[in-house]
């Protein structure tokens, strides 16, 4: 099925504007996606009609807000096919979700000499929390190497696995290059040595079908704002038995069962991990974002984005001086590149002058850039509302820029 792109675009008010006198082409979707009108409406409706604190109020508004809030949890559960809604914890974002696991599961179950495996492709938010934990616990961080094309070397991963391996935290799809990791194989192999696995789904959940029961991952972390939802909201999925074994993350309201000055007992999951008043409005509006994705269907979204990426690769291959970065066989819709003789910042700024929004720099993956011998890249990342004619504009912009140094 091919989408009616104009109809989809009409749902996103922000796309209809000019930047530096040119129609906006928004290709920074891996950083954050734009929000459909339904999400914006859900936010204002909540504040106009339902604003109330949840789970405790003895009045109609609190009851409504609580119901809507828990409906989102149910929708997220279905979105990733979790067994039950209690396994869905709302956080500030992927970063907080990973930090939560490192600070609770990590602190309780990782000890001296234990090993944690990550890959060269990781975002800083899936590196630093584990480094901090390793430093505290005298544990060891092991890194899966990658090939020049930006794919992990699976055989090297197998060599790293041992009874010492307690945890594997791996990105599902790379934010900098788009590489899709063979996560099913990784999870199975990690489980075979008794290790738990966290998937960083920040870039995968918007493009790929992610079924946590089928994958059998122990944790999945992702952010609402990369899924056409509001900023400042993320999800941590965890298997019930793992979450129950973990100590709480933060102390405060909501997460307790009973507090006395002598001893506090903790609430059941998911509330044990949701101390304080949560981000109620954004959680409620997130449901509209997921409804939007479900309406279009992940399979068709993926087909559309794959077509865009294939078309972009084809157009860019004609450009002298265009250097693709990350050429894995399996990718989400990320086009990372450099222009021969030019700094990515300069390319990004010139594209911006053409109304084209891209990301430039190290994409919070400095170890990856170092491995590739690059200071950074220019990254164009496509979403469901992007079109081939926008890619034509990108190709025209890039060829004009590339000609400066590649005559």
């Amino acid at each position, binding site marked *: 099925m091919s989408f009616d792109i104009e109809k989809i675009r009409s749902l996103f008010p922000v796309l209809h504007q000019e930047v*530096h*006198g040119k129609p906006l082409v928004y290709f920074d979707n891996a950083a954050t996606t734009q929000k459909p009108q339904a999400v914006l409406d859900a936010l204002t409706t909540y504040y106009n009609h339902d604003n109330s604190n949840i789970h405790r109020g003895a009045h109609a508004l609190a009851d409504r807000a609580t119901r809507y809030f828990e409906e989102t949890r149910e929708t997220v559960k279905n979105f990733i096919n979790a067994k039950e809604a209690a396994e869905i914890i709302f956080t500030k974002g992927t970063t907080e979700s990973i930090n939560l696991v490192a600070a609770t599961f990590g602190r309780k179950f990782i000890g001296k000499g234990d090993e944690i495996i990550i890959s060269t492709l990781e975002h800083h938010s899936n590196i630093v929390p584990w480094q901090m934990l390793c430093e505290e616990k005298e544990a060891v961080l092991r890194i899966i190497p990658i090939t020049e094309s930006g794919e992990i070397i699976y055989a090297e991963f197998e060599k790293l696995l041992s009874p010492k391996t307690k945890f594997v935290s791996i990105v599902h799809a790379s934010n900098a290059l788009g590489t899709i990791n063979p996560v099913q194989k990784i999870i199975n192999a990690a489980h075979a040595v008794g290790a738990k696995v966290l998937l960083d789904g920040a870039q995968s959940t918007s493009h790929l079908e992610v079924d946590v029961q089928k994958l059998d991952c122990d944790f999945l972390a992702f952010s609402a704002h990369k899924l056409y939802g509001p900023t400042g909201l993320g999800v941590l999925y965890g298997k019930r038995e793992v979450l129950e074994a973990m100590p709480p993350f933060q102390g405060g309201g909501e997460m307790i069962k009973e507090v006395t000055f002598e001893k506090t007992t903790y609430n059941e999951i998911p509330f044990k991990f949701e101390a304080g008043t949560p981000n109620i409005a954004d959680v409620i509006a997130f449901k509209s974002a997921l409804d939007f994705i479900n309406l279009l269907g992940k399979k068709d979204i993926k087909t559309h984005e794959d077509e865009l990426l294939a078309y972009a690769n084809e157009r860019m291959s004609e450009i002298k001086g265009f250097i693709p970065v990350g050429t894995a066989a399996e990718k989400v819709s990320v086009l990372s590149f450099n222009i021969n003789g*030019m*700094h990515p*910042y*300069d390319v990004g*700024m*010139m594209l*911006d*002058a*053409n109304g084209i929004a891209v990301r430039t*720099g190290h994409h919070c993956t400095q170890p990856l850039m170092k491995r590739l011998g690059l*200071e950074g890249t220019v990254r164009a990342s496509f979403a469901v509302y992007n079109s081939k004619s926008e890619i034509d504009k990108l190709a025209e912009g890039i060829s004009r820029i590339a000609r*400066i140094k590649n005559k």
Partner: protein
Amino acid sequence: MNSIAEIQDEIVSEFEILGDDKESTIYYIMELGSAMESFPEAARIEENIIKGCQSKVWLIAEEQDGKVHYMADSNTDITKGLISLLLRVLNDRTPEEILDAKLNFVDRIGMGSIIGSQRSNGFAAMIKQIKLFALAIQSNQNV
């Protein structure tokens, strides 16, 4: 040599010719950078990098006949162009002139909207470093 005020007026009128077209403005800035005095390889070291810039900017200064001579380089062409504008206004002047300089061309050409807020921070860091060098040379002169 034209005064600091005169050179700034020159820059402003050049940018006025470019008008609102952001693309040609950027091309122009990049060309300015490519015309800059070549930077000594030996000085391309960590200690000479200006802190606070997103891209790498190397800046050195020395006293020549009571005036401050600067040399700069960057790994990005746009940044190199930006610093070349600053040096066009401030290079080879006395420390007093540099320290007293009112750099109004930056606002007059709408630099903030040309380069965006992140690069504007870097631009401010360049100006600060230029003035710090002038101050250091002035203190030496007064010893």
